[in-house]
């Protein structure tokens, strides 16, 4: 099975611009990307639609981590998944060059909140992305009760196309 995440260059640039904005006390910013889905035999396509930033006031003051979002941020994202029936991907950036990776804190937090999305929108997978300045890595849950799969390929849709595989 391959899992390919596609996003237009325009949208990815919008995401990067937002995540680069400084925050009063959080060291990192976080947002959510909604996606449509499609399948081709046993292969899954995740097709990014729109981005929503986490509001400044929805971050928690926690100097021990880069960014901690509060329950309001999660609630709004859950509401989004419910009202539009979309797949939702948490996204943040670690900067730098090359393939990024999730930190242990990222992994711990993902495992806590991503499965909740299945109670709201069980017809969609949900997941998390981490960006570097020139690459992306992603986890996707196809089932709220199981562990994540790794997104195996990314396409930044624009001229020229930017296509890369993580497998």
């Amino acid at each position, binding site marked *: *099975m391959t899992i390919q995440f596609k996003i*237009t260059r325009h949208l990815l640039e919008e995401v990067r611009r937002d995540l680069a904005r400084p925050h009063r006390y959080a060291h990192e910013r976080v947002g959510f990307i909604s996606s449509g889905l*499609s399948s081709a035999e046993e292969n899954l396509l995740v097709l990014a*639609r729109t981005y929503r930033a986490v509001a400044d006031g929805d971050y928690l003051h926690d100097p021990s981590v880069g960014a901690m979002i509060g329950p309001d941020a999660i609630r709004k994202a859950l509401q989004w998944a419910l009202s539009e029936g979309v797949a939702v991907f948490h996204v943040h950036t670690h900067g730098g060059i090359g393939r990024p990776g999730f930190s242990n804190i990222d992994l711990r937090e993902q495992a806590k909140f991503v499965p909740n999305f299945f109670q709201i929108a069980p017809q969609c997978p949900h997941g998390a992305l981490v960006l570097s300045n020139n690459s992306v890595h992603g986890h996707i849950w196809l089932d709220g009760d199981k562990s994540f799969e790794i997104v195996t390929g990314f396409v930044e849709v624009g*001229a*020229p*196309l930017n296509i890369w595989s993580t497998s």
Partner: protein
Amino acid sequence: MNRFDRQSFLGMDSEFKLGAATLGLVGLGGGGSHIVQQSGHLGIGGYVLVDPDHSTETNTNRLVGGTLADLESLTAKVAIAERLIRGLQERPRITPVRDTWHNATAKLKRCEIIVGAVDSFKEREELERFARRHLIPYIDIGMDIHELGGKKYLIGGQVILSMPGKPCLRCCGLITEERLAMEANKYGAAGSRPQVVWSNGVLASTVVGLITQLLTPWFNNPPDFVYLDYDGNRGTLTPNDRMELLRNKICPHHPPEETGDPLFDVREFNRHVADLALNKSKFSSAPPATSLWKTIWAGIARALGL
């Protein structure tokens, strides 16, 4: 020395990028067959080739790769295209679909680029919409010969790059309700429209140039919206005025909320994947079939005490 050395200016890893790409080609007639040939030469590695027809006598004035022998054997256009590519590449990944593209959508979804060399506005619109839903750049190619009266003719055509988020065929004015209605009144019959090989060649070569710009880094800041008009009488290919007017326009005809298959359900997908895995394991654990000749030989060997 490498057979792609003369195109190394396309970029250090261009050979890899072209080889790894999969191109969807819908329509393998006069325009599409040129694109197949050039893509094969260029080194594009993957193809989904879609056309329900076979070669006919009136195709032979323009079907690149088709021969007179194909007429006798009613060779399918997809077979002609596949033959062309296999003559130019050692291990291409070819999925031929001798059917309409409506029956090839699962295969087309996995393409990096889809090219539509189709005859009708209705097919163009639906194919473009399918491509947009799957965030696949769509390139449209079309040629027409218009009779002007007094035995004078105008050869015209267009190439349009329809990139997700950017202006579409409706934004360009190519697809309109009036054109669709006129076409519907004729029940979509294209009829025997005049077609010639050289005009198809100009347009197809332009398409392949765009494909190369999308897949390799040779051209700095390639345009993400292209609308070129072909005037076959003057021998010109020029940007349509809308290319500049619409350059920064966001397309209203394909809202981002319509990206994806609205009927997708991950629970059904999981069941389908589980079923496929189960079928694969059943197949691989079944005892291998014994050939008839092995059985006969085993019997003979026993009889002879071997």
